[in-house]
């Protein structure tokens, strides 16, 4: 369970006049569930890349409970992300040719962290998502089932942060609802801070805090409005 403090974050690309993301200050409490919304091109993906350490930012602070990603070298960020962040993406990024269980365990294995406890947890998580055959090859699964595998993968190392980028966008309504349930339920059970980038009103409505991005800036923050 980690808390986030963003300060003076600005991401710009060469050739673009305005920064694609500019956040002077933002705080997430540990264990908070936050929805990030906005039109496409508003900076949502950049926001995900910045808070997950995928995109390197040279100035400001991205402080996750005392670890400032701005000051971490690339390999340290990789290491930190492997340990603390579970990612769920719109198009799953499962690896064909591997079974559901092997996909869930892949990040742990690549980090040489697939202990027997992790393996047990992988089986439990897969069972918890309602998948009955952990040995099933992922190519043979429906999209909803694939996303369940992806959620199990995100949670297998009990990360302090779960970040989901449009997790329901490529699913039908029914599957989307199952995924939303699982995401919120399992992240909550693990006590992880949950950040969900989404257009899906059904999913957004279930998250207590909502932030809206517009042209790289936070135009609305439901928590700030309350305060």
């Amino acid at each position, binding site marked *: 369970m980690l808390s986030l403090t963003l300060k003076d974050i600005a991401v710009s690309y060469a050739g673009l006049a305005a920064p694609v993301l500019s956040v002077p200050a933002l705080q997430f409490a540990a264990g908070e569930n936050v929805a990030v919304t906005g039109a496409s091109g508003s900076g949502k993906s950049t926001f995900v890349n910045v808070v997950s350490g995928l*995109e390197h930012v040279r100035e400001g602070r991205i402080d996750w409970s005392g670890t400032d990603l701005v000051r971490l070298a690339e390999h340290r960020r*990789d290491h930190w992300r492997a*340990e603390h962040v579970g990612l769920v*993406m719109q198009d799953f990024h499962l690896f*064909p040719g591997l079974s559901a269980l092997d996909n869930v365990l892949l990040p742990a294995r*690549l980090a040489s962290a697939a202990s027997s406890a992790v393996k047990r947890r992988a089986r439990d998580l897969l069972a918890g998502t309602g998948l009955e055959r952990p040995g099933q090859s992922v190519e043979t699964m429906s999209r909803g089932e694939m996303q369940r595998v992806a959620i199990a993968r995100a949670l297998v190392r009990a990360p302090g942060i779960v970040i989901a980028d449009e997790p329901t966008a490529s699913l039908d309504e029914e599957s989307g609802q199952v995924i939303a349930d699982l995401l919120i339920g399992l992240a909550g059970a693990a006590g992880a801070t949950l950040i969900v980038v989404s257009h899906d009103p059904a999913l957004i409505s279930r998250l207590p805090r909502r932030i809206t991005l517009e042209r790289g800036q936070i135009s609305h923050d439901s928590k700030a409005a309350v305060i």
Partner: protein
Amino acid sequence: MIGFILADIRRHKGGTIAILLLVAFAVALAVSVTLQERALRLGSARAANAFDLVIGAAGSETQLVLSSVFLQPAPLPLMEGAVLQRLAADPRVAFAAPIGFGDSFAGYPLVGTSTALVAHLSPQLQEGVGLRQEGNAVIGSAVDLSMGAVIKPMHGTAEEGAHTHTGLAYAVVGRMKPTGTPWDRAILVPIQAVWELHGMGHDKAEHEEAGHEEAGHAEAGHAGGEHEHSADATAPINEDWAEHSAGVPAVLVKPKTIADAYKLRQEYRSGTTLAVFPGEVLTRLYATLGDAKILLMAVAIGTQVLIAAALLLVTIMHVGQRRRQIGALRAFGASRTVVFRIVWLQLFAISLAGILLGFGLGYLVSDVIGGIVSRQNGFTMPVAFARGDLAFAAFVTAFAAVLAVVPAVLAYRQSPAAALKG
């Protein structure tokens, strides 16, 4: 990591097999060139091993070796019978065996010689007995005739439109053990019979007509038919060359010591005779062959470079196609070094399998070619790897390892965020 690589290989089976085969063929080409050249060198050196010193009439050294050691049919000039007489009497000579060729039977070269050469080539016979009478023949191990078979010698070879000698038919009495030389395909008969059949070196009292022009004729240049001579198949062999000897194209000399060998070569290298160490002549031949090998190796290496370039292109494209996958791996926490290792290991493993397959394939091809050469020429081509091949294998492996670094570095430097956006 291994599981992930295996899954990726399984998924790209076709491409993987294509790369594997490309590498295998490139390696096999170089390996078979090396092995063939070595086999030829070793095989011919072994074939020449039994022939310490060969003396013939003045002419081409190479032709003398090709005709005597490798039994390649060619018209060779004859030496006077006196040369054989002198050699047989020389105290420095352990034995001097005449070698008379020109006749053939069923595609096998028929060689007129002495009992000493039979004993030299095959101290113990595989079956049967040695030469005792003029009508006896001892065959090489690879001659497809059975004991007692009748041999009607043919002057020249069938392809040259030769005629059959009617004066004498030999009977197979013995078979030599395999020697791994072209002599395994030879039929050995008493030189005495050959002389008589060609009307040479007869006892003057018995055969009046023997004195005429025949003594000087070149073996294969004989325009057959007009003079048929006959010989007595049951006449005992007389190897007292001083008593009767006619012209021979070559004499194999076994000197008693190495010093004697050099002295003899010196002595018989002037005027009308030519003395050669077949090993030495072959060494000179290899020098020429060596140039051909360099050319072939250059072609083989050129092929390898082209294939390496094609491989590089393919793998770089493959990494490009896997941008998202590699990005995802990074996003899920795989470090850059893990990504590097995955890409490197995958390409290197495929290349290594290709290299191993290539060595196997190269060996197989060389072995098959060696087998064909053995069957046709009778001399064994020993196809074998040598220490030098290890260096080649190490070099190719190292090259593959270095080559695999290129796409691995590309994958290593790829930003995970950029990869996921696409």
